[in-house]
């Protein structure tokens, strides 16, 4: 381990050709990819929204379906970035040796890791936007404020891509990712106000929930979908940015160590 492993990221525009590579791959599989972005979250939203929603009173001053809509955008962006950073990122780093090929050119590991995060966030953006279009078509959100969901999807994507890459940097094989999805992503879906308000949780869980990035994403998304300015917006944005930046640095240090052989 050398002190160079801990150097601050040196970023450049050289990440751009790598991002374009990922885009070219994605264009070849765009149809199933878009379907994947949409099917799972929309089925959950409609199934729970119509099925469970008809049994429930208003939640947080809105129909259960509208309540669920904001949460659905957030968790689908979280999932897109996480899958991309873990499974696809690992394939490029380890199985296909795409990173190795790129690192032999005048591109550094810092550029490669940055491109991974930006690409995973791009997938979040596409996934969030796709769900948002369905929400608009179903008339679940009428406010122009809901357009702010698009940059929010990008920010949520950056945070979860960076966190996911930490897991990728530590992973010996694909099986390892099951721990992260089972122990981190799934609990987050249940603890962070996607399906029901955090205030329903026992006090200890509420405190835990407040430290999790998805909670801050949902706290921003729900008012925006209803045309309101989110309370404590800067705090929530700050937390998401902090997660993105700190996790990016940690992932980069871990990748430098892993690939320094």
């Amino acid at each position, binding site marked *: 381990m*050398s002190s*160079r492993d801990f150097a601050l990221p040196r970023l450049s525009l*050289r990440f751009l*050709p*790598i991002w*374009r*590579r990922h885009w*070219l*791959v994605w264009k*070849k599989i765009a149809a199933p990819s878009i379907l994947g972005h949409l099917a799972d979250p929309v089925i959950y939203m409609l199934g729970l929204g119509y099925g469970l929603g008809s049994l429930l009173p208003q939640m947080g001053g809105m129909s259960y379906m509208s309540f669920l809509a904001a949460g659905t955008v957030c968790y689908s962006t979280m999932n897109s970035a996480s899958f991309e950073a873990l499974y696809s990122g690992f394939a490029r780093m380890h199985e*296909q*040796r*795409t990173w*190795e*090929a*790129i*690192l*032999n*050119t*005048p*591109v*550094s590991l810092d550029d490669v890791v940055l491109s991974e995060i930006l690409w995973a966030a791009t997938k979040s953006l596409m996934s969030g936007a796709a769900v948002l279009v369905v929400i608009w078509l179903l008339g679940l959100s009428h406010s122009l404020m809901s357009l702010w969901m698009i940059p929010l999807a990008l920010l949520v994507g950056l945070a979860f891509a960076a966190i996911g890459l930490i897991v990728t940097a530590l992973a010996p094989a694909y099986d390892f990712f099951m721990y992260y999805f089972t122990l981190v992503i799934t609990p987050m879906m249940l603890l962070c106000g996607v399906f029901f308000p955090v205030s329903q949780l026992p006090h200890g869980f509420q405190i835990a929930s407040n430290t999790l990035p998805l909670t801050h994403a949902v706290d921003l998304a729900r008012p925006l979908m209803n045309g309101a300015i989110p309370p404590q917006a800067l705090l929530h944005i700050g937390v998401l940015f902090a997660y993105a930046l700190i996790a990016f640095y940690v992932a980069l240090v871990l990748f430098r160590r892993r690939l*320094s*052989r």
Partner: protein
Amino acid sequence: MSSANSSAQNIVIRATGLQKSYGVQRVVDGLDLSICKGECFGLLGPNGAGKTTTLRMLLGLIEPDAGTATLLDLPVPQAAREARIRVGVVPQMDNLDPDFTVAENLLVYGRYFGMQDSEIEARIPSLLEFASLSNKRDAKVPTLSGGMKRRLTLARALVNDPDVIFLDEPTTGLDPQARHLIWQRLRELTQQGKTLLLTTHFMDEAERLCHRLAILDNGKLISQGSPRELIEQNIEPQVVEVFGETSAQWASEYAARFSQRFEASGESVFCYVQDAQPLVAHLQMQSTLRYLHRPANLEDVFLKLTGREMRE
């Protein structure tokens, strides 16, 4: 340091006292190398000798624990990125983009060097011709044979028209036809004045291609020179291989009498001699033994210097 013409401005790769350890194992141990412009230089060594680690340090991909290296007059790893603009790399294991066609692989790779799409597109036909892949331009990578993939990897390494090309075991896993085609292309590259640094454990490959060689074992450079120099300096000029069930018994009685040095390996005895005539005359009388008389080659040198035990 053997070439007379290794004046300072001609050296494109230089390593001084390079050292690298992983844990307690010293993988590269005080390596000095100078490789001149236009030279095809081979790094030979058994598995685990430190060849790939040396290449990765010279490319500036990993930091040495001690020692210094320059690539195209730039210090690495400090200025590795600038140096790699003029370098091409053929890695040991294929890392082509499986989702792309042959031409897309070249286009996408050229962009990493900061080249414009039009500039890359203009180079693609000649690169494909060089790799004998002109009719595979739009084929997807998984449909290519092993030899085609290697040639595409070579073409990809040339996309930026590099001055120096690193090749890590460029023909491992290829059939003879595919190897010969690669060798021909590598010779063309040296004729164009490009500098090649390759690792291999095929001695025939090293002997045919390389102007100079260095043999590495346990991270140390144990011999260096042209293929002919290495043979002359390290080994007797003639080899007689003796085979047969009774070869061991024969060896214990006669081998020392007829050869300067001999080694038994299974049912074969390798006799290293200055003059093979007396031995050959003797063997012609032995009805239970077969023999092969040949000039000493690089493989003999290699086995003498690094031993016959397996390295695993």
